[in-house]
């Protein structure tokens, strides 16, 4: 079932989930893979591609999933508004049920909380669904959620600027709000806890300093920005757009007024982007069907490129950095091992 490619990447296995893959992720230990599809299928697969279980079908499509960073605990949600939590050997827990699409899910870094955006409501729950807090009537649908590194605050991407909430406290009002007239599509908090980055509908990336709220933006991208990623050291922010990936250097005073490094090697639009954890590697999948990998500290040209035959929609590195998981618009997920 495995096949070598000219790029040094070896396709280990492929699974078909019938429709556009909205998310595919490794568990914290790399032992399991979970993938969600617009067909409504949400499947858990072993590291060698064998089906472990199919979660209950999500009517109208599965839109989001996230593994706990501390255990083999998986959260899945979608257009039916039900947030489910699965663990090996345990019954599936319904953590929330809302009359709205759930398209954003994120566990806190300590695994103690799960945040979900359901329409205009931000929901924060504990893994056993024993304690649920909700923050309703936000200015618009919550497009993405992100946690601060200390797991104390969770951020909702909502029109009018990101809003931060503290689920450990009883206050309903946001602990912090960074006002901005625009629509943020993807949030990424820097691992060092200093910055919040947001890919935006208005073809820009917006940056806020935590927690002063001082902000700046990088404009001039040819597309709306849905692919952003911090390097593990928080030194670089990679931004995927059409035809290139820009890397902004946050050393010293930050990238304001500087020119980014530009990674090349494809012409389509980036669907997803991810840094490896330890190795200096950056990967992207594009809508012209490529998986591209760079060693960005050495060169702006790729070290590997593979044509996947369908637009790439999602991407994740194995915790050991020696494999990547690629989901496509035609419903396949493939594990590639780096040779």
């Amino acid at each position, binding site marked *: 079932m495995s096949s070598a490619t000219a790029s040094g990447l070896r396709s280990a296995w492929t699974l078909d989930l019938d429709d556009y893959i909205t998310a595919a992720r490794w568990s914290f230990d790399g032992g399991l893979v979970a993938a969600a599809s617009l067909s409504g299928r949400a499947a858990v697969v072993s590291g060698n591609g064998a089906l472990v279980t199919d979660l209950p079908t999500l009517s109208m499509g599965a839109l989001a999933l996230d593994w706990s960073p501390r255990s083999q605990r998986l959260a899945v949600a979608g257009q039916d508004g039900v947030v489910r939590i699965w663990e090996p050997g345990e019954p599936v827990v319904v953590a929330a049920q809302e009359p709205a699409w759930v398209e954003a899910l994120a566990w806190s870094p300590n695994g103690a909380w799960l945040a979900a955006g359901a329409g205009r409501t931000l929901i924060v729950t504990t893994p056993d669904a024993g304690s649920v807090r909700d923050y309703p009537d936000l200015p618009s649908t919550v497009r993405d959620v992100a946690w601060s590194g200390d797991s104390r605050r969770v951020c909702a991407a909502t029109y009018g600027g990101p809003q931060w909430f503290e689920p450990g406290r009883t206050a309903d009002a946001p602990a912090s709000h960074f006002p901005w007239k625009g*629509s943020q599509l993807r949030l990424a908090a820097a691992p060092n806890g200093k910055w919040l980055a947001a890919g935006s*509908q208005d073809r820009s990336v917006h940056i806020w300093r935590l927690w002063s709220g001082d902000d700046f933006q990088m404009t001039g991208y040819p597309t709306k920005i849905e692919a952003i990623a911090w390097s593990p050291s928080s030194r670089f922010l990679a931004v995927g757009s059409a035809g290139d990936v820009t890397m902004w250097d946050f050393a010293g005073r930050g990238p304001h007024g500087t020119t980014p490094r530009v990674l090349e090697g494809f012409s389509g639009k980036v669907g997803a982007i991810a840094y490896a954890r330890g190795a200096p590697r950056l990967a992207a999948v594009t809508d012209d069907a490529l998986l591209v990998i760079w060693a960005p500290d050495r060169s702006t040209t790729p070290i590997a490129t593979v044509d996947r035959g369908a637009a790439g929609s999602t991407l994740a590195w194995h915790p050991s950095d020696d494999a990547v998981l690629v989901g496509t618009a035609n419903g396949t997920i493939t594990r590639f091992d780096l040779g």
Partner: protein
Amino acid sequence: MITGFLGSGKTTLLNRILTEQHGKRIVVIENEFGEIGIDDALVIDADEEIFEMNNGCICCTVRGDLIRILGNLMRRRDRFNAVIVETTDLADPAPVAQTFFVDEEINAQLALDAIVTVVDARRVLTHLDEERTEGVENETLARMLRAEFAAIDLDEILGVGAFDLDRALELDPAFLVDSDHQHDQSVTSVAIEMAGEVDLQRLDPWLGEFLSTQAVDVFRSKGILTIRGEERRFVFQAVHMLFDSRPNRPWRDEPRTNRLVFIGRNLDRDALTRSFAACLA
């Protein structure tokens, strides 16, 4: 897109469209769940979310909910032929229309066909006499069709290409001539006519830069261009920063030339002409 006052007959028209044997798969996006249960029609509930883009530029105000719903629909393997957006009585149709131009993903895969406004003939005269808020005009250049209980030839309102530049040129051969009446003396127009073949690689950044830096001043731009290596005429139009361009029909027995018109304030004719000339191959 179907608009109209409360009780004017929007749902009657929608039902008429959905029950017709047209063989098309139609998605209906409504602000509230209607009572329509028609085979082959997927009805989706939308919550009107108005987003101002580009720091509040009015022409860049879009419907965030539509971007999300349409984006999700276009990803599905299960394809559809048409989308009908039914707006609430009080919704502004402009952000719906602008969504089709501002979001590049939607612009690439969908085209705004027409805005159909349903008017109750018995009540319309009263409304026309009501006091108007500033900036609202009742005058329209739209085609008017009369109907009872929405009994109308659907070819008159579906697939009509009302936003198609091709069609605008056919209906109005003077489309590229500045005929907009203006009360403001500072508003001028600059027309450029130049032979030669345009290099698309140079044109895109030039137009993008010009429209984004002078978005407030440039009300309207339009043009027909000769692109190097392209057998078809290339047409573009823009309203402020909203920009649409595509190849249209092949060049016929006519001079292959470039004609552009810009209407707005503070337009520098010489600089525009020079910078466009630099886009020629």
